[in-house]
């Protein structure tokens, strides 16, 4: 006699059997479908296409609309890339740019702005935060033009005009300190993301908890250290992870500000190279295949980093088991 038959007539809920499980999974997949389809269409399929392109020698110089004769060259693009004398420099440029911008602006300054603006008068805090959002909602072209105008050489640059008026020497900022400006320009935009997330996290800590901490004898600083920081751990980790990945892949502001220069690859980052090689007519030739190899490596770095973050920060521990149990 089967297990099913023995207990079939009772009303005791049984462990999930075959068709039941399928049903409950179907429900789950159904709910995941909208997000899943987006990920497939806008991430997995493009990655697959780029991956394939990176294994071909497709370029504007040998372009053919007959895809059947597109030459498959295996890993040759990757070989070229590894032997590329500038790839190494660009790689370390990228690490430098991401680390510095992330740590100083996207996380630390964002946290500082959130903590400060939540500890002052509410409406004043709101105004300060609104100001910090301006760089993000301004079109990148306009935003970069403003910066360029600020730091341009004498006699055009606004800062240099002040220098002149005050009898100071003038500077060509972008050629003497390109990294400072690449980081600052991106950092000012980067602050707002963390700021919004951190502020909402801090605001949603129950008032009683914050009051209890003061009554228990902490100063405002100790309260930040012992109560607020631990309670916003999750948003903090989220911002670190998310912003690392978005800094890795964003290049518009750098392209507009320095376009990787001045000189040879001084502020060139990996994603910008992928763009330059594949789409920006590199010495008259758009190397779609070779550029794709750069893009594929970037995706791989991103995935590896994401996995490492999840492990190191133990994201799975932060997510509670769903409260709704399927019966």
């Amino acid at each position, binding site marked *: 006699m089967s297990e099913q038959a023995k207990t079939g007539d009772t009303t005791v809920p049984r462990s999930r059997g075959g068709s039941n499980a399928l049903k409950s999974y179907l429900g789950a997949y159904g709910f995941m479908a909208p997000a899943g389809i987006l990920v497939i269409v806008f991430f997995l399929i493009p990655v697959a296409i780029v991956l394939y392109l990176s294994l071909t020698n497709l370029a504007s110089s040998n372009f053919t609309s007959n895809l059947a004769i597109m030459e498959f060259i295996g890993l040759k693009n990757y070989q070229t890339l590894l032997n590329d004398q500038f790839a190494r420099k660009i790689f370390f440029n990228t690490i430098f740019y991401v680390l510095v911008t992330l740590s100083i602006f996207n996380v630390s300054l964002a946290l500082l702005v959130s903590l400060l603006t939540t500890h002052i008068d509410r409406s004043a805090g709101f105004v300060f935060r609104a100001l910090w959002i301006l760089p993000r909602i301004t079109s990148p072209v306009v935003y970069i033009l403003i910066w360029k105008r600020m730091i341009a050489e004498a006699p055009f640059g606004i800062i240099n005009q002040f220098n002149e008026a005050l009898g100071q020497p003038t500077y060509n900022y972008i050629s003497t300190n390109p990294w400072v400006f690449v980081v600052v320009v991106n950092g000012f935009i980067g602050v707002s993301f963390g700021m919004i997330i951190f502020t909402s996290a801090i605001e949603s800590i*129950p008032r*009683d*908890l914050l*009051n*209890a*901490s*003061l*009554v*228990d*004898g*902490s*100063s405002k600083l*100790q309260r930040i250290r*012992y*109560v607020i920081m*631990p*309670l916003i*751990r999750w948003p903090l980790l989220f911002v670190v992870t998310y912003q690392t990945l978005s800094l890795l892949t964003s290049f518009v502001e750098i392209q507009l500000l320095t376009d990787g220069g001045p000189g040879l690859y001084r502020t060139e980052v990996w994603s910008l190279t992928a763009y330059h090689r594949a789409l920006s007519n590199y010495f008259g030739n758009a190397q779609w295949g070779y550029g794709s190899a750069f893009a594929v490596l970037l995706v791989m770095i991103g995935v590896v980093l994401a996995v490492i973050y999840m492990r190191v920060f133990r994201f799975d521990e932060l997510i509670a088991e769903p409260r709704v149990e399927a019966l």
Partner: protein
Amino acid sequence: MKVTIDNLSKKFGEVVGVENLTLHIEDGEFVAFLGPSGCGKTTTLLTLAGIYKPTDGVIRFGERVVNTVQPKDRNIGMVFQSYALYPHMTVFQNIAYPLKLKKVSKADQHDRVRQVANVMGIGELLDRRPGQLSGGQQQRVALGRALVKEPDVLLFDEPLSNLDARLRLTMRGEIKHLQKDLGITSIYVTHDQVEAMTMADRIAVMSGGHLQAFDSPDELYDRPKTQFVAGFVGNPPMNFVDVSVQASNGRFFAETESLRLEVQKERGAPPASHGGPVVMGIRPEDIQIASDPNNGTVSGEIFVVEPLGREDLIDVRIGRHSFLLLADTEDRHQAGERVSLAFDMEQAQFFDPETEKSLLWQ
């Protein structure tokens, strides 16, 4: 520690939290703030704790004016309605937190937390997190955290209102016992008048940001100075009727078109000399259903019977007046039944309908 509050006001812009509050609380006294929702109890408490700055007035702990003293320098313990335990800390760390901030050594922290935990009966739970505790256990942890630093003043903000009725009863006893044992000046906010009556040495009755009365529970119950206090203290609440009190031949009668009750001279003379209509108050426990009608009783009809277990709460209609009273369940009264009521007029209260002040006690 004596706590002296003089003319304290706290306003949030236009909104009045509490206004012109004066209270002198003795060392070791247990004072309850009692009042309906929104009357300013929490505001007063948080102002005492130093979370809010007073808009006006002076607060003294002992002789020290603490108006601008930071919460951390006031040496207070506070228990919140929501418990406000730190979710990321274990029970041990929660209780040890005030000690850690005081830079007490690790070993001493350990001893004192253990000791407090044992007193609170949560010695077994020290490694758990608040999320893994029941409401009652969380309440004990919160109390332990407030007590561990041996505060000069203990503040409670409706600490029992999230507990079930049974647990509330036990905790009530425990808190009162502990407070008397430790002799820490305590202020206990509640809107439950049973809690206030049973626990407090004195009760501050508040309403709309103003102090209505500050007296011992018995005093508030027997000699309420305002109609608000009379109605708020006591459960089920006092019955109020508009009457006029007439004197005839040295005797006094409280009258309406359907009622005529004799009042003793001490209680009847002041409302009679006040003249015009007054409000008479009589508690449910001072009205009995008489078994045999005589000339002192009034006849009425039972409108509704609400069984409370030990006794029935009965609403009796006399003319257009309605009186709540309590009767033995054994008597099995039914709605629609006609009954005779005997009023114990020695307990009747009289209030000026304009000022709502008592005509008997000033």
